C-alpha cells in the first residue's frame, strides 16, 4: 500500500501578501481557511482535522473555536521552520487515506514581516540539547537564516564553480515571473542581472536580491479523499506522493557536521521517496516549486531532486530553462523571492493553481508539479498532479 493518489487538495484559500496586514494572525488564518472551505464547497462543520507547522503561532484550539468547529479528531504540526512546508500535506494525506479524517485543513498564517522578522536574528534558545546545539553557533555570530544557509552555499560554490551571477539568474527568473503575477509583492517589478550583482551583501555569499521577501499573509488548503474530492466543487489536485526527510547526521539550521555540505542530502532523501511513491520521475514533472528562502537553494535542489547531475544546475538554469516556456518552469509565481514568503505554503497554492489551469503564468497542460520545502533544515516535499 502506498499513499499515491489516495488524497487530494479539494480547496484553496489565501489572503493578500503584504508588509503589514493590519490584523491578527488568527484573523489571517481564518480568512484563508474559510476561503478554502468555500472553494471546496464545504463548511467548517465538515472539518475534522487541522495541520500546520510548529512555527505557526495559531493553535488549532483558537481556530477551531472561531470556526465554530465540531469534533476535531486529528491535529499535528510539522517541525523545523520552512522545512515543514510540505509536511502538512503528508500528515493530512495520511489522515484521510487511513479513514481517520474526512476533511483536513492545512494552514500557515503569519505577520512575519510586521511583527517578528526572522531575518533580524534568533531569540532565546530552547532549554534542551537542541537549544545548546543552536547556541554553539549563535554565540559565534551565526544568528540569521542568511548566515546559516550562507555557510552551505559557500561550500556549494567551491565544489561546483557556481557563482553569484548564476544565483542572480535564479533571482532574475523569479522576478520575471513575479512581474506578471498580480498576487506578487513584486508585481510589475522585474530586475536585471546587473541589479542583482549591484545589490548589497547580506551575508557573503548571499546578496539582498538572493533573499526571500519577508511577508504577512496566510494560505490554507482543504484535503479530502480523492474519491470525495471528485464530488466537490473543484477539480481535485491529487497528492501523488509526500514525504519528510532527515538524512544521517542531519541537524537543523547548523547542519555542518555531515561530510558533504555541497549537496542537499535531506532533499535527495525526500526526492527518492517522492519518485518511489508516485512512480514518476523528474522527466514527468511539468513545473517545480523549489523552496527559495535564498535563491541559490534552487540550484542545490535541482541537483538533489534529480533534474540534473551534481554541479550542473548552473548550466541547467541557463537560457531561460527555468522560466515559463523553458524545459522546467520553476517558481512560476515568482517564488518567495518575488511573490511573498509565506513559509512555502504560497508555493503549494501556486502548484494547485497551475494544475487547475488557473495560474497567472500558466504552464500549458501542466499535469504534475513538484513542491518542496526549505533546505539546511530537515525538509519535506510532495508531488501533486491531475488526471
Amino acid at each position: 500500500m502506498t499513499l499515491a493518489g489516495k488524497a487530494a487538495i479539494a480547496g484553496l484559500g489565501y489572503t493578500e501578501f503584504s508588509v503589514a496586514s493590519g490584523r491578527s494572525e488568527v484573523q489571517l488564518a481564518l480568512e484563508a481557511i474559510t476561503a478554502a472551505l468555500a472553494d471546496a464547497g464545504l463548511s467548517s462543520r465538515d472539518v475534522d482535522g487541522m495541520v500546520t507547522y510548529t512555527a505557526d503561532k495559531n493553535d488549532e484550539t483558537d481556530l477551531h473555536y472561531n470556526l465554530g468547529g465540531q469534533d476535531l479528531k486529528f491535529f499535528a504540526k510539522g517541525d523545523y521552520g520552512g522545512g515543514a512546508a510540505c509536511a502538512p500535506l503528508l500528515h493530512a494525506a495520511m489522515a484521510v487515506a487511513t479513514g481517520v479524517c474526512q476533511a483536513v485543513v492545512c494552514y500557515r498564517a503569519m505577520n512575519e514581516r510586521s511583527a517578528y522578522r526572522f531575518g533580524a536574528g534568533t531569540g532565546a534558545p530552547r532549554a534542551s540539547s537542541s537549544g545548546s546545539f543552536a547556541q554553539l553557533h549563535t554565540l559565534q555570530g551565526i544568528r540569521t537564516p542568511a548566515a546559516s544557509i550562507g555557510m552551505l552555499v559557500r561550500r556549494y560554490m567551491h565544489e561546483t564553480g557556481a557563482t553569484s551571477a548564476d544565483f542572480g539568474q535564479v533571482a532574475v527568473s523569479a522576478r520575471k515571473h513575479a512581474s506578471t503575477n498580480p498576487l506578487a509583492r513584486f508585481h510589475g517589478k522585474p530586475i536585471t542581472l546587473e541589479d542583482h550583482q549591484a545589490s548589497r551583501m547580506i551575508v557573503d555569499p548571499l546578496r539582498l536580491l538572493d533573499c526571500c521577501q519577508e511577508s504577512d499573509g496566510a494560505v490554507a488548503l482543504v484535503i479530502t479523499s480523492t474519491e470525495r474530492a471528485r464530488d466537490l466543487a473543484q477539480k481535485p489536485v491529487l497528492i501523488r506522493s509526500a514525504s519528510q526527510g532527515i538524512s544521517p547526521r542531519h541537524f537543523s539550521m547548523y547542519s555542518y557536521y555531515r561530510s558533504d555540505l555541497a549537496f542537499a542530502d535531506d532533499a535527495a532523501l525526500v526526492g527518492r521517496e517522492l519518485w518511489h511513491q508516485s512512480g514518476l520521475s523528474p522527466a514527468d514533472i511539468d513545473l517545480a516549486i523549489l523552496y527559495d528562502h535564498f535563491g541559490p537553494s534552487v540550484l542545490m535542489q535541482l541537483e538533489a531532486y534529480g533534474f540534473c547531475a551534481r554541479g550542473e544546475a548552473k548550466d541547467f538554469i541557463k537560457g531561460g530553462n527555468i522560466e515559463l516556456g523553458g524545459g522546467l518552469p520553476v517558481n512560476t509565481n515568482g517564488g518567495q523571492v518575488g511573490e511573498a514568503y509565506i513559509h512555502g505554503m504560497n508555493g503549494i497554492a501556486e502548484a494547485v493553481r497551475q494544475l487547475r489551469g488557473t495560474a497567472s503564468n500558466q504552464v500549458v497542460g501542466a499535469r504534475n508539479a513538484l513542491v518542496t520545502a526549505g533546505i539546511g533544515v530537515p525538509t519535506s516535499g510532495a508531488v501533486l498532479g491531475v488526471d
Partner: protein
Amino acid sequence: MTHSAVPPRPLMTEDYAYFLEGLQRREVLVQKCDDCKRLRPLPGPMCPHCHSFAWTAQTLGGGGTVYSYIVHHHPPIPPFATPHVVAVADMDEGVRLTAALDDCAPDDVAIGMRVGLAFVTEEDGFVLHHFVPAAAP
C-alpha cells in the same frame, strides 16, 4: 524592528556541560568513546557508532583547515564587528568545529586556509573559542 542582543548564556544542559566547562579552562573538548575509541562530532550521551555510554574528554590540539565560511554584513549583531567572518573547519583530529574567525580581513579568508584556536573572554567573564589564521610554519 529590534535586533536581538547577545543571547542568554549557554544552556548548561547535561550533555553539553563538559564542552562549556572545558571552554572556561580554555580548552576545546571532544568526546572519545571508551569502547570503539571514535571521536564524536558533536556532544551527546551515546556513541552513534557503537552505542556505548562510556566516554572520555579529549582536548583538541587547535589546528584545523577551513571547510566553509561566511562573511556576515547585515544586520549588525553585537558584540561582533561588521563585517565579521565565521568558519567551519575540519580539525586535525577529524572533527568539525564552527567558530568566528578573528584577525582575518573578509578578502583574506579562503576555503583550505589553516586556522588555530584563540580564546576570548566576553563582558560577563564567559570564555568562548574563536579561530585565528594559523601562523606561517
